[in-house]
């Protein structure tokens, strides 16, 4: 069991110790967890400080920048805006848990199109696009314009081309 107030080393005791109310469990990248610490703590700091899943980045505390975007039950959410109290029964996916042993088509497309410059916002961008492509097989102009994740390096044109490429890769893998 994890306790936010005294984070144990990341490698120990990720699984529930037993005795907790199963209804309060939540999943992170397919593994069950319980949280006994401050219920107001945002998911972002749980992922980073407790689970050491540092692929989810801190960029602001207001949900404006999107660097902390994760999937909750498959939907893109700002981890800085979700308190731990709201997580019972939900499944969280971070960039680390997107795929195991291979690349998600969106990650593959990001690499092929060489999107990253500083790279810091890209986990959040990728998670947002994973959600978008799961919802829309053929996202339109407005869908792409609605991506509100900020990138200070200005990689937007390559994000666009990576989305195009991800669509092709997804279609190919579904054939």
């Amino acid at each position, binding site marked *: 069991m994890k306790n936010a107030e005294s984070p144990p080393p990341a490698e120990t005791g990720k699984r529930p110790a037993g005795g907790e109310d199963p209804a309060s469990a939540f999943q992170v990248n397919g593994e069950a967890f319980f949280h006994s610490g401050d219920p107001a703590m945002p998911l972002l700091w749980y992922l980073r400080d407790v689970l050491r899943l540092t*692929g989810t980045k801190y960029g602001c505390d207001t949900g404006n920048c999107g660097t902390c975007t994760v999937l909750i039950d498959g939907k893109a959410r700002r981890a800085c805006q979700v308190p731990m109290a709201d997580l019972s029964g939900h499944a969280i996916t971070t960039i680390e848990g997107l795929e195991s042993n291979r690349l998600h088509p969106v*990650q593959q497309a990001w690499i092929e199109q060489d999107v990253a410059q500083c790279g810091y916002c890209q986990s959040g961008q990728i998670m947002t696009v994973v959600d978008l492509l799961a919802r829309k097989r053929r996202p339109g102009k407005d869908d792409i314009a609605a991506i509100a994740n900020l990138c200070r390096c200005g*990689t937007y044109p390559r994000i666009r081309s990576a989305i195009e490429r991800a669509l092709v890769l997804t279609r190919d893998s579904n054939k």
Partner: protein
Amino acid sequence: MSTRAALSRRRFLQLGLTASGALLVGFGKSAFARTTTQIELIGEDLVKLTGYVMIERDNGIVIGAPGCEVGQGVFTALPMLIAEELDVDWSRVRVIQLPYDEATDIKPADDVMHGNFNGISEGWKLMREAGATARWLLLQAAANAWATPVTNLHTEAGHVVHADGRKLSYGALARMAAALSLPTDPVALKDPRDFQLIGKPTRTADARAIATGQVRYGIDEYMSQVLVAVMLRCPHPGGSLESLDDKEARAIKGVVDVIRIEGPQPGEASAGILAAGVAVVAENTWAAIQGRRALKATWKPGPWQEESSSRLTASANALLDAAKDGIVLRKDGDFAGSRKRARLTLNARYELPFLAHATMEPPNALIDLRNDGALLVASVQDAPAAARMINALSGLALETIELRLPRGGGSFGRRLHNDFVAEAVLIAKLAGKPVKLMWMREDDLAHDLYRPFGMHELSATLDRRNRVAGWSHHCAATPLEWRTPVKQDASTASGCVETDGFPAGLVDNLDRIFHPLDSGMPRGAWRGQQHTFSAFAEQCFVDEIAAQTRRDAVDLRLEMLGASREIPYRGTGGPVFDSGRLANALKKCAELIRWKEKRSNGHGVGIACNFSFGAHVAHAFEVSMEDERLRIHRAVCVADVGRAVNPLGVEAQLMGATIDGISTALRLQVTVRGGQVQQKDFSDYPLLAMADAPDKIEVHIIESSLDPIDAYEVAIPSVAPALANAIYAATTVRIRKLPLLPELMRML
């Protein structure tokens, strides 16, 4: 190669053999003091080395990247230079980030002008020499092994090949090569015609690690026993803590300590901490954040509590209205005389706001101070200065200070400053424990070292044939130095106006005069530096002259640039500026945007060009107003940055800088009221998002075989003027104040 270059090369190349039989070729200040056996590289202990090539027994190639990657692409481009000369298959190369430490400082003070190893211009020779020397050693080793002259051998993708067809891998030769002495004569570098990797579009070396969330930035560093610190800083420049009630903060579970940090003294040099503050030290980030929120602090305002943006504007206007007692930066011919003879004199005044860096990863630093040394983990671009700062604040000897430089989440100039390192050291000293200092977004926006505020008054005198006979440029701006008394000499203008910027050397009568403006706001380097101010004022003004005299704005620029020639230039990127290369970039840009095409659809086209840091760049935009919304239909960037080592990376820099330039020019400003910064979140500092970014930036890189120039900063300065000129073309509204959008909405 010059004698000096040869000497420095020998000074920095060092050679060694690892315990596992890998060959190392590195560079270090103390190369001669080290024997080959002192370099040890065992198993995972890679980060103990400085700049080097490492060849493993199984022919794996590891190349160390010096400097600090913050998105400018050096982590890929610098190792490419080594790999090219080493003649290895890039797909087999593993790039690792090198740490920095004083003992292995790879840069001689007399060889390089400024602080750190960050760019392709600096690495162009040194990196290739390192690769070529490693290859030379491998060739010698093979020649010895086969008892044949080196002339019978050549290299090919990580192998030495004999004329008779025999082949040995670098891995097999590494041990023998490491036993050889370094060449006494400089090793010849490849003929550029033989380049296989340089000039080839190459993806970011750690692209996969980024896309999978595996790259560790400074903020991602966790070590056992390290406490997290979050600071509350005095909101008043030069202010101090008056009272503190930390009872509630200390009661929060996980909070370990609350530490007061004394502010800098008035007049203290501006290199250290920015403000007085209170640090909450906790077991985790959330506890530290909550602890800070629970602090009850009152502050004594410093001497700047009356400062405001409107007052600064008024002071700048007053200085320019008086137009006297300025610091003369450059005076050619007789501007006043040209005014008397002029058919027409034009004037315009341009204003640029303070700007924040707003790196996506806010500043952070992890510091472990021990009795016998220190470890810093932080993305810093001036590592030598960071080391000196730790030394000054802790008393630890420089050679015991280790700096690890993780990939940084953006810099734009922010990580050239080490104020956050100083804070971390002070907190760690008082806490008696290793500390990771985290800056939150509000800290980042409200306590930055801002791009200076500036007002530029330009005047041009036109002769009977509407030729620009005289040009005067008065700049009133807040100098880069702050907290110390304003210096009354030309050096104080650096960072605010480019002394030899356009059209110096092109117009016979030219005045460039600086009027320092006092302010309590911390100031610092910002991507593109003084060129962002100079180019906005100059390139908008050329457009205004063209409009007033009914000239074509491209023709007027070309006329002013005149015949292709080299013009003396004292700024970075000198000693000359090539008017022909700038004219070429401008012409190409005009061609791509279809400048001459008549547009009847309400679209307007604007153009601008600029020389900075050795690069010749032009931008053009096609815009229109639709439902009171500015739409950018096309964006073109043409750049001559010399040889593009990695065209894919150069394109990314030019594209990204263009978008950064648009973002900044349209909406961004930091404002001051009651001596305090008004911006605290991205909602107050609205970076451009996907919705407002052009779908495409049309980038054209001019082919060149001249030495490469870093592309990181050079494509910012011409963006804002090209946009303002395009807005004028579309709307006839001339905007002389940044950011453009609030002004446009006010004037429409």
